[in-house]
């Protein structure tokens, strides 16, 4: 008797406590891997939201990028994850949606601000559900040392031929290493090499979709050629580039020792901060002057709602705000290099970021080819691309051989390619 009254009392206090908490502010926690952005969220983005929505408190709680997927999965399984989940593109998030951890947000008002390409990274294959609000994409291209270019009297190249002429000229002069890129971390060769210059060969979305449908193969000319180009870069890289890691390449460039850096736009903020020379950027060179140009404009980051959240209304309010033009402009300006996917025009102040985003006007955007659907099996196509691109760059594998390895691996499990 005593015991049960005590239990009842305890239960009453606990329920009462939660009841009171609910009556007060709704508190939202954001899970993210972007621990670099902590101050930007705390000082700019969250205050801007809270000012407009009193009664909702938001906390940004990031974890380390390499651990994020594993940490998030175990938190979701244990039911301790935050209310808002930052979404990796494609399959990592799709599997969360299929497990019922993310909710469909298709009916969110501001979802209409995004194009289908932007939403593709966080939609089911048939497009019937969209479970994350697209936040940002990154664009590939080449960043160059503008002072060095002026000193040597060279113009940023437009065609492939000009590109090699520029590299040759820098090499002859000898003051600078023509290009900063290493083979050690492998992903430089794949991300900033293969998928950077590749879209001009496989014609962006056209080639990517043809690969998914099985109409094109990785051994086709348009997929082998960019590998062949990477193989030609080796003589223009630094001494011992085989053991040069990604941070080495960054330092080589920002210290002013290398003239060109095959880049992703996420470098902009870091390079602005560290380089004390003028920076410029040019898009991946086309094969012949006047060719249509394609750029890799890769959807990289989105945000969705934990299906088990207790503050669903507040979470939806926040997500709707993320879809607004106000957020787009705040985010793009606080993090130059992460471009808003919103269809609304966003004014950016950073000149280098403006240069990158201006390519969207003339060139067609595409995403990295391995990311949608094609990396679902074993061997993983994207991992294979890292390995093959690095091998080709080091000259350890012929481009045709590398392409064959990629194709064989893909055909091993992907039916449309069999």
């Amino acid at each position: 008797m005593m015991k049960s009254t005590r239990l009842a009392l305890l239960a009453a206090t606990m329920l009462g406590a939660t009841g009171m908490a609910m009556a007060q502010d709704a508190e939202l926690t954001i899970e993210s891997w972007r621990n670099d952005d902590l101050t930007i969220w705390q000082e700019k983005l969250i205050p801007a939201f809270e000012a407009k929505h009193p009664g909702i408190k938001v906390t940004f709680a990031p974890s380390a990028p390499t651990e994020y997927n594993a940490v998030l999965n175990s938190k979701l399984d244990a039911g301790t994850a935050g209310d808002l989940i930052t979404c990796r593109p494609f399959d990592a998030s799709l599997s969360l949606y299929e497990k019922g951890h993310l909710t469909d947000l298709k009916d969110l008002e501001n979802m209409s601000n995004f194009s289908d390409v932007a939403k593709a990274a966080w939609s089911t294959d048939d497009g019937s559900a969209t479970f994350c609000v697209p936040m940002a994409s990154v664009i590939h291209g080449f960043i160059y040392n503008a002072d060095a270019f002026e000193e040597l009297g060279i113009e940023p190249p437009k065609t492939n031929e000009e590109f090699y002429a520029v590299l040759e000229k820098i090499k002859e002069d000898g003051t600078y290493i023509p290009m900063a890129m290493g083979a050690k971390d492998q992903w430089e060769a794949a991300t900033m090499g293969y998928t950077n210059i590749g879209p001009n060969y496989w014609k962006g979305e056209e080639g990517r979709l043809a690969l998914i449908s099985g109409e094109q193969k990785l051994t086709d000319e348009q997929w082998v050629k960019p590998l062949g180009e990477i193989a030609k870069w080796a003589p223009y890289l630094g001494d011992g580039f085989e053991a040069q890691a990604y941070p080495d390449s960054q330092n080589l460039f920002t210290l002013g020792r290398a003239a060109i850096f095959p880049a992703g736009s996420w470098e902009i903020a870091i390079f602005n901060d560290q380089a004390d020379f003028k920076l410029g950027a040019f898009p991946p060179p086309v094969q012949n002057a006047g060719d249509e140009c394609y750029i890799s404009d890769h959807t990289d980051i989105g945000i969705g709602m934990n299906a088990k959240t207790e503050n669903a209304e507040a979470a939806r309010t926040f997500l709707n705000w993320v879809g607004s033009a106000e957020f787009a402009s705040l985010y793009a300006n606080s993090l130059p290099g992460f471009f808003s996917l919103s269809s609304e025009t966003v004014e950016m102040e950073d000149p280098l970021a403006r240069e990158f985003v201006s390519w969207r006007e003339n060139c067609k955007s595409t995403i990295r080819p391995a990311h949608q659907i094609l990396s679902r099996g074993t061997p993983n196509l994207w991992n294979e691309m890292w390995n093959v691109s690095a091998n080709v760059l080091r000259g350890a594998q012929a481009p045709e051989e590398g392409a064959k390895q990629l194709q064989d691996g893909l055909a091993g499990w992907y039916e449309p390619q069999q």
Partner: protein
Amino acid sequence: MRGPGTIERRSMAQATKKPRRWHIAVFLAPAVLIYTAIMIIPLFSTLQLALYSEVENSQVFVGLQNFRALFGDPQWSDQFWNALKNNTWFFIVHMIVQNPIGILLAALLSSPRLRMRSFYRTAIFIPTILSFVIAGFAWKLILSPLWGVAPNLLDLVGLRSLFQPWLGKEAYALTTLALISVWQFVGIPMMLIYAALLSIPDELLEAAECDGITGMSQFWKVKLPLILPAIGIISILTFVGNFNAFDLIYATQGALAGPDFSTDILGTFMFRTFFGFQLQLGDPNLGAAIATAMFAIILIGVSIYLFGIQRRLRRYQF
């Protein structure tokens, strides 16, 4: 060697009714409970995990299917055999470099004429207490073709042409990493052998000297046979440590163990499979199958040593 006391106690125990010796259970309990909780249960749940597979978001018992994939499907088996081959080479380098150097250093340290002995001992042992990550990054910097001291040091002695970006070349990367690991851990065999050498009684060495065995031949004929059991223990520790290795490769080469998987060992292969990497989603079941295979390899190795070698080692009582 039973003393008279033992017999007396035994007869007493037989005379009265055997008391239950609760204290044994009580004293063993903490160790048994903790060891069971943190070692035995996880070990068996890993074995169990390897027999399941995820089908439509739920774990289903599939028997040995994961092992069939691991050894039968070329996508996995090629990687597995490559990792095993690399791991074996990693072990061989340790056996032919680390342990002889450890023995040599111990022999030098135990020489009575050596001065500043404790300084050398400490200096050689210090890398062992460094974290793998620190050792890995330090060597990555030392060997860096851009900022490393290795090219300059070679330049000083006129051997610059011998410099290679070792960590970036398939032919050298694994051996380089094995040698880094040797540098880090050579202190352990040195200490164990040093202790074994110190425990050899002086009378024995004096007797040898009386018989005219001195210097090198004293080491080969008297000391070495006496420290063989210690060398055996070191070999088995090296074996277990090498086949469980992971940290150094991960810290210096990343989870893809480049260039072209030439430094991929069982630990990194297991990590990649279990936790996934980039777009490759983790497969805990297959990862557990690899962990089980690693466990089996180590178990077989240790058994061979225990039953095949250790029993035949002659031990000397002083």
